[in-house]
């Protein structure tokens, strides 16, 4: 009989706010060490916390997206522990009245949907960042007081794939709702995985793997930790209730420390922050501010003929997706639009390090150019030629085409002459075609485009060429 894995996940996300949670210093690290710091962040005696409204609203947004019940009257709690990364000696967090409880999120593995229940989502402050070097540790308080939300699941997952799908789902939700950057590699999203194995319905002793640095490592760490626990149990030994980390280089989990009991933290309500009331009005405002999320976008794109692969590519780039969404109420060809955005336009944006919203590709210009491509009145070569002007000038598509001296031959009489010349010069291809080889059409098209220096209306050429060949 196989061991069954039971997995629960705790995720910390840094919230995208201007200032810290309990002080008005800037929420930004990665800049000069200890430059975004004030007396509150340093835990100076006599300082008091002031609660950032945006933190409450952003955390509320996360709780609503995760279908949680909201604690409308909530308070904060002190978690006491003595450590240099926390100079005031306690972390202000939420233990008794987390902002959201009893939520859930739907995940999908190999087409099978599964509900992962959310135990709670609570608000707390980050600690300072410490860098260890030989016999010293160096502290940077820029991170101290950065707002975090912690999302705790029930132990509802049973495979590494489900765990990875959950983390990915949460990341996508939070990115689209503008809650967090969710950069796992840079630490703005941190995953702790709890895992135990058992052959019976009774759960085994769990181990916690802390701070896993990527979604794929979440899967690897679970596989390796389950293997380790299985070996222990098979040898008649016991799993120790402890904290581990995943060592990517050696692909194994390494014990960090035996866990302290929860009551050693001596939680008690934070007396410096009175009760916080979440009003129905605030809930409504926050609900209304939630944009279309990734899952819904994917459905809209696929409904308009975009492949799953391309829909996912667009969703990976929120700005491009936001741009494409401007056209959801128009009847442009979304397949062409998505190909342009993922192809030449993305290449241009990457090269020029611009956001599409900072270019001159206004809504009506984009509609015009997509429609022209759709009708075949310009081809992709012309699009490439006018791309920079589309992005950088205020001129209309027609003006750009005229200014660039690009001639688009849409006169059938003119084209017929070119086609006839090309067919005369390629008699062998023509007989190949008559012999049933349809592939020569592509070659002949190429010759005609070459003859017209790419200025022929491709759809018209195709039509006229077939007529001529079938005569």
């Amino acid at each position, binding site marked *: 009989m196989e061991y069954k894995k039971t997995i629960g996940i705790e995720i910390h996300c840094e919230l995208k*706010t*201007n*200032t810290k949670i309990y*002080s*008005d*210093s*800037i929420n930004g690290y990665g800049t*000069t*060490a*200890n*430059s*975004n*710091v*004030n*007396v509150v962040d*340093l835990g100076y005696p006599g300082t008091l916390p*002031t*609660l*950032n*409204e*945006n*933190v*409450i609203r952003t955390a509320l947004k996360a709780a609503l997206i995760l279908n949680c019940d909201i604690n409308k009257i909530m*308070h904060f709690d002190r978690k006491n*522990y*003595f*450590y*240099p*990364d926390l100079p005031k000696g306690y972390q202000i967090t939420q233990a008794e009245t987390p902002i959201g409880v009893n939520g859930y999120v739907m995940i999908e593995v190999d087409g099978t949907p599964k509900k992962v229940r959310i135990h709670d989502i609570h608000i707390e402050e980050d600690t300072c960042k*410490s*860098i*260890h*070097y*030989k*016999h*010293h*540790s*160096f*502290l*940077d*308080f820029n991170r101290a007081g950065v707002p975090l939300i912690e999302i705790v699941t029930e132990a509802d997952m049973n495979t590494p794939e489900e765990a990875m799908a959950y983390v990915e789902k949460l990341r996508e939700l939070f990115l689209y709702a503008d809650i967090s950057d969710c950069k796992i590699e840079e630490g703005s999203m941190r995953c702790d995985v709890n895992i135990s194995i058992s052959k019976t319905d009774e759960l085994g002793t769990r181990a916690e793997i802390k701070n896993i640095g990527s979604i794929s490592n979440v899967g690897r760490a679970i596989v390796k930790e389950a293997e380790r626990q299985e070996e222990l149990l098979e040898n008649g030994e016991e799993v120790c209730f402890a904290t581990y980390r995943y060592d990517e280089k050696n692909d194994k989990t390494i014990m*960090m*420390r035996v866990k302290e009991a929860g009551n*050693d933290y001596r939680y008690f*309500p*934070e*007396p*410096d*922050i*009175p*009760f*916080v*009331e979440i009003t129905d009005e605030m809930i409504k405002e926050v609900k209304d501010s939630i944009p279309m999320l990734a899952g819904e976008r994917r459905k809209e794109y696929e409904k308009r003929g975009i492949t799953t692969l391309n829909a996912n590519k667009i969703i990976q780039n929120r700005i491009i997706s936001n741009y494409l969404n401007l056209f959801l109420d128009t009847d442009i060809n979304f397949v062409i639009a998505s190909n342009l955005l993922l192809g030449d336009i993305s290449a241009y944006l990457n090269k020029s390090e611009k956001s599409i919203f900072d270019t001159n590709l206004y809504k009506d210009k984009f509609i015009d150019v997509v429609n022209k491509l759709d009708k075949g009145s310009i081809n992709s070569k012309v699009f490439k030629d006018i791309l920079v002007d589309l992005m950088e000038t205020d001129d209309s598509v027609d003006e750009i085409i005229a200014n660039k001296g690009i001639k688009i031959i849409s006169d059938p009489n003119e084209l017929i002459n070119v086609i006839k010349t090309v067919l005369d010069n390629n008699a062998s291809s023509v007989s190949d075609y008559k012999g049933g080889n349809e592939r020569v059409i592509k070659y002949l098209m190429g010759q005609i485009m070459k003859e017209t220096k790419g200025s022929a209306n491709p759809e018209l050429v195709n039509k006229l060429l077939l007529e001529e060949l079938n005569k």
Partner: protein
Amino acid sequence: MADCLTREEVLHVARLARIELTEEEIEKYRYQLKTLMDDVDKIKDVELKTEERLISPATENATLREDTPGEMLDPEEIMKNVPESNGNFVEVPVMIDE
């Protein structure tokens, strides 16, 4: 009720505070901490007039702060107040685990 804490209880508290105690100190604190705890315990004798939870002396709900940056400290000023520094960093003896 015992009139002093056990040796283990004192050592446990010392470990949470990350301090080292001599044998003499352990003995001394077994009694001192007990006195302290008894003093705090007196709060349990207060007769409550309400069932309502009270977490703060403030009777109003929390006022929330606007998310706009205020003044911050100059790193140089911060370093004047720390025992050891290294460049812009606060330096402390190496922290074990984590």
